[in-house]
């Protein structure tokens, strides 16, 4: 693996992404066994350092770590007790002093994961740094797409929703472009960042056109805070213009794969019936989440890498 840490998918080598996806499939098999455990990370200590609430990502990582026989420690810091910057460095140095092998960190500030690498010698995995990147989510999304279609190159993926505030979107854009897929973004103009086309993606505000074009839709959660910021008039308006509703999908007679990183606002960006339909691979994403996180941890922490010979 070219990089010691996993901080983001920008400039992450395609070969390494492929290795992670392939290894994830091997681990998926492990997750089907009666005893879902391999000894690969026996004796390694991993800290889940979450400065922001996230039950599902943390549980996914925790399961991945335990299935690999690693020792897991959870640290949750609520923002109110965060004494701004001071605690970050102190926390990092305290962990360092306890001789841990890896840190999985989620933090509300972009650049926080990179910042942590300056204070700590352990391997860092970014579980989401503010509105910057969320590489493991993009990897599990790509694993799920690969599983469904058998390939990624040339796939047409539409990401729908609040792109500006989405680290899931940015990481997916980097990863999918690296793997040769095509990406179109769709959402309210106020929620699509300027200059985003520079990353090689298209932007289209007409969700029906986008649905016609795409092989798969990655539907993002709409946060109610956006209305207070003057960026979005109402939930109703969003649903009318961009909601992936049963009504809207029924107008398009085509094979379409539906994805969502979760948690879903059923009835807002996506209808319940759509989320529960056969087209949706949302639960697969969850399982692939554990498998791909196992792959990432295995590849980054397991011994010195040698070209795969036996």
């Amino acid at each position, binding site marked *: 693996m070219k990089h010691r840490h996993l901080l983001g998918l920008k400039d992450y080598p395609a070969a390494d992404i492929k290795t992670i996806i392939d290894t994830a499939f091997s681990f998926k098999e492990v997750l089907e066994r009666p005893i879902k455990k391999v000894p690969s990370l026996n004796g390694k200590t991993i800290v889940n350092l979450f400065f922001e609430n996230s039950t599902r990502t943390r549980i996914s990582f925790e399961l991945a770590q335990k299935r690999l026989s690693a020792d897991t420690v959870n640290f949750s810091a609520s923002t109110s007790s965060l004494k701004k910057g001071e605690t970050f460095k102190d926390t990092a140095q305290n962990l360092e002093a306890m001789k841990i092998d890896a840190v999985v960190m989620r933090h509300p*500030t972009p*650049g*926080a994961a990179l*910042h942590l690498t300056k204070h700590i010698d352990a391997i860092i995995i970014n579980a989401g740094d503010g*509105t910057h990147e969320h590489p493991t989510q993009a990897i599990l999304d790509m694993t799920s797409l690969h599983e469904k279609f058998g390939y990624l190159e040339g796939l047409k993926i539409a990401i729908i929703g609040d792109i500006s505030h989405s680290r899931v979107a940015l990481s997916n854009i980097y990863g999918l472009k690296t793997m040769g897929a095509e990406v179109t973004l769709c959402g309210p103009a106020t929620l699509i960042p300027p200059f985003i086309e520079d990353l090689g993606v298209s932007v289209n505000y007409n969700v029906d056109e986008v649905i016609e074009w795409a092989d798969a839709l990655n539907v993002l959660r709409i946060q109610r805070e956006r209305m207070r910021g003057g960026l979005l008039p109402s939930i109703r308006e969003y649903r009318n213009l961009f909601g992936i509703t049963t009504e809207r999908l029924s107008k398009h007679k085509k094979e379409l794969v539906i994805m969502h990183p979760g948690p879903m606002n059923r009835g807002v960006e996506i209808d319940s019936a759509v989320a529960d339909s056969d087209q949706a691979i949302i639960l697969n994403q969850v399982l692939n989440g554990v498998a791909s996180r196992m792959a990432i941890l295995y590849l980054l922490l397991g011994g010195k890498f040698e070209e795969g010979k036996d």
Partner: protein
Amino acid sequence: MNFSKLKKQVILKGGKILDPLANTIKKGDILIQEGKIKAIGKVKSNKSVQTIDCKNLIVTHGFCDLHAHFREPGREDKETLESGSMAALAGGFTRVCVMPNTNPPIDSPEVIRYIVDRSDECPVYIHPIGAITKGQEGKELTEMGAMLAEGAVAFSDDGLPVTDSAMMRNALDYGTMFDIPIINHAEDLCLKQDGVMHEGIVSTNLGLLSSPDLTESNMVHRDLSLTNLTGGRLHVPHVSSAKSLDHIRFSKKNNDKITAEVTPHHLFFTDNDLQGFDTNLKVAPPIRTIADQKALVKAVKDCTLDCIATDHAPHTIEEKEGTFDLAPFGMIGLESCFGAVNKVLVKENDMDQLSLIQMLTTKPRAIMGFNNKLFDIGVNAELTIIDPKEEWVFSRKDIQSRSHNSPFIGQNMYGRIKYTINKGHISVI
């Protein structure tokens, strides 16, 4: 840096005397006696006189900075008037104007008095810039008349913009009575919101909240228009964007009461340099694109920009070592100024040495009404001696400030301050 009292007689021998007022560069010697210029030309040296070999060095006026933050009173942990003076001397500056966003702010004649008195004890001439509004709250004008009488040289709420246009108009209007510059930190706080860098391709890639160049240029346009309306004097601080330059250039055609400054960091860096999330590059106004950088260089050369000012802004290690969103805005800049601007302007963009020196000496002094005849016989020696071609790497050792928040550490510099002579003392850098 070695700081000591000047000997009774000192000869600066064989240097290139660059007179930015007379526009000349002549090889010659300078004799300084009891801290004053005694003779210029050919001076015989003898054993009892200290001789400083200035072969291949430029001897010129000490630099004047119109924009620095010495954190006294209130945050002496970041900088004091003394430590700021040392930083200034290391950068070749003999005169510094300090901004009023201290704690308490410099918003009354009493605090102006305090700064002026303290400055007498400092090795650099320090001139207080008074706040425009009381407490910098943007609601009531300060007692400009009384503050000027105590020694204020200009007025600014720097750190904060004067958001209320009526208040800005009043400040310019009131200021016409005194013929002093009003300096507004142009930043539309509503457009800025929580932006921490320039809104562009780089900010999109970094996921950082950002603000567009209009945040500055809209307000610059407002200030220029109000200046035309009132007949006041405006000095635009730390111009960062091409759009602002367009407005300034246009206004200057018909109004000679407008001046503008640029910082070394806006000339040296671009937003690309923020890829590593270095908090030392977090400044307000933010560092913008290559196109803006090129426009700034062009504006220096065509005199749209009048002078270079450092916006020296010390912050503690603890404040700057946190995550990007929480770090305060600002970097120190006195010590690194010349090496940086000389490299960008003279070495890389064909500006002539004399013009650059004018941007650090006569032009800023003229804006504030300071004496520019620094090579007159009998005048207090206020000089700096420079090796214009030395290539060096800026390091922590070169910093004299109490704070170390500089992104110039590790950068290549061109041109180096060797000595600064001021107030009867000499600093050997």
